[in-house]
C-alpha cells in the first residue's frame, strides 16, 4: 500500500516537473519556426485578391499557415522594434502584402523581385505576413 502511494506521488512529481518544464522553459525557447515548414506558394497579387474578394474563405485557406509570397518590393521600412518590414506591390495602388521579417535584413532592394516566407496573420487593408524571411 505504501509503495503504491509513494509511486503515485513520484509520478505526480515527475508529471508536474515535466509540465512545468514544457510550459515555462521549453515553450519559451521554442516559438514556431516557419522556416522549416512546407509553405503554400502564391504571388502577392493573388493573395491580396483572395482576401479582397472573400476574406472569410481566404482566412480558411491562408490564416496561420506558412506561405511563400512572390512579388516586387514597393517599399522597405524599419518597424518600431528595429525589424525590417517589406511591402510587396500589387496591381492595387492602395494595398499590398506587408511582411515583417523575423530579423533585420538590409539587403532587400526596392523594385527587386523577391520570395518571402512567413506566417499569414490576416487582412487589414494589406495582407500581413509575420516571422518572415527572404528565400533565395
Amino acid at each position: 500500500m505504501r509503495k503504491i502511494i509513494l509511486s503515485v506521488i513520484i509520478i505526480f512529481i515527475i508529471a508536474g516537473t515535466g509540465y512545468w518544464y514544457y510550459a515555462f522553459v521549453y515553450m519559451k525557447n521554442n516559438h514556431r519556426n516557419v522556416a522549416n515548414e512546407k509553405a503554400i506558394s502564391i504571388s502577392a497579387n493573388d493573395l491580396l485578391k483572395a482576401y479582397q474578394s472573400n476574406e472569410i474563405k481566404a482566412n480558411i485557406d491562408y490564416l496561420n499557415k506558412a506561405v511563400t509570397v512572390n512579388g516586387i518590393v514597393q517599399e522597405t521600412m524599419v518597424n518600431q522594434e528595429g525589424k525590417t518590414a517589406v511591402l510587396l506591390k500589387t496591381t492595387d495602388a492602395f494595398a499590398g502584402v506587408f511582411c515583417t521579417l523575423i530579423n533585420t535584413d538590409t539587403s532587400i532592394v526596392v523594385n527587386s523581385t523577391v520570395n518571402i516566407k512567413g506566417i499569414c496573420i490576416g487582412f487589414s487593408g494589406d495582407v500581413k505576413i509575420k516571422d518572415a524571411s527572404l528565400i533565395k
Partner: protein
Amino acid sequence: MKRIILIGFFLVTVLAGTAQKIWSTRTGQVKFFSKTPGEDIEAVNNEVDSKIAQANGQMVFNILIKGFRFPNALMQEHFNENYMESAKFPRAEFKGFIINNTSINYTKNGTYNATAEGNITIHGVTKKVSIPGTIEVKDGKITSKSVFKVKLKEYQIKGSAIGDTVAPEIEITVNCKYQ
C-alpha cells in the same frame, strides 16, 4: 494683378494640401499587459495599421490578433485559441474621431492631449468608448500614444485563467509613429 491671383491660388492649394493631410503607419505598436500577483504577461504587436486625418481628427486602428508576440510560445497559443479565438475573430479595430482635434497644432512641436471617441471592436464585440491619449508633434512627424484598460468580460473573452494568472482587466499601450 495676375501675379497676385497666381500667388493667391498657390497659397490656397498649399493650405488645402496641408488640411487634407492623412497621417498613416503600417508599423504602429500596441502592447498589452496583464498583471496578477502570480504572473506578469506582456505581448507586443508591431504591425498596427493606423490613419489620422489631420483636418477633422478622424482616426482608425486595425490590429491583427495573430500579430501579437509573446515571450512564451505556449501563452501565445492559448491567447489565440482559448482567449481571443483569433481564427474566428482575426482583427481588432478602433474607428472614431479625436474630439478635441482643433486644439492640436500639427505644425508645432509639442505634446497635445487628445481624446478619441468611437467604436472599438475586440473579439467580435463592438463598444462605444472614449479613450484619453496624446498626439506628439515632433519635427514634422506625429506619434499617437495612449494607455487604457479593457475589461475582458465586456468583450466576452473567456478563458480558464482569467482572475487567476490572467488579470480580468488588461492594460493596452498604444504607441504609433506616423508618416
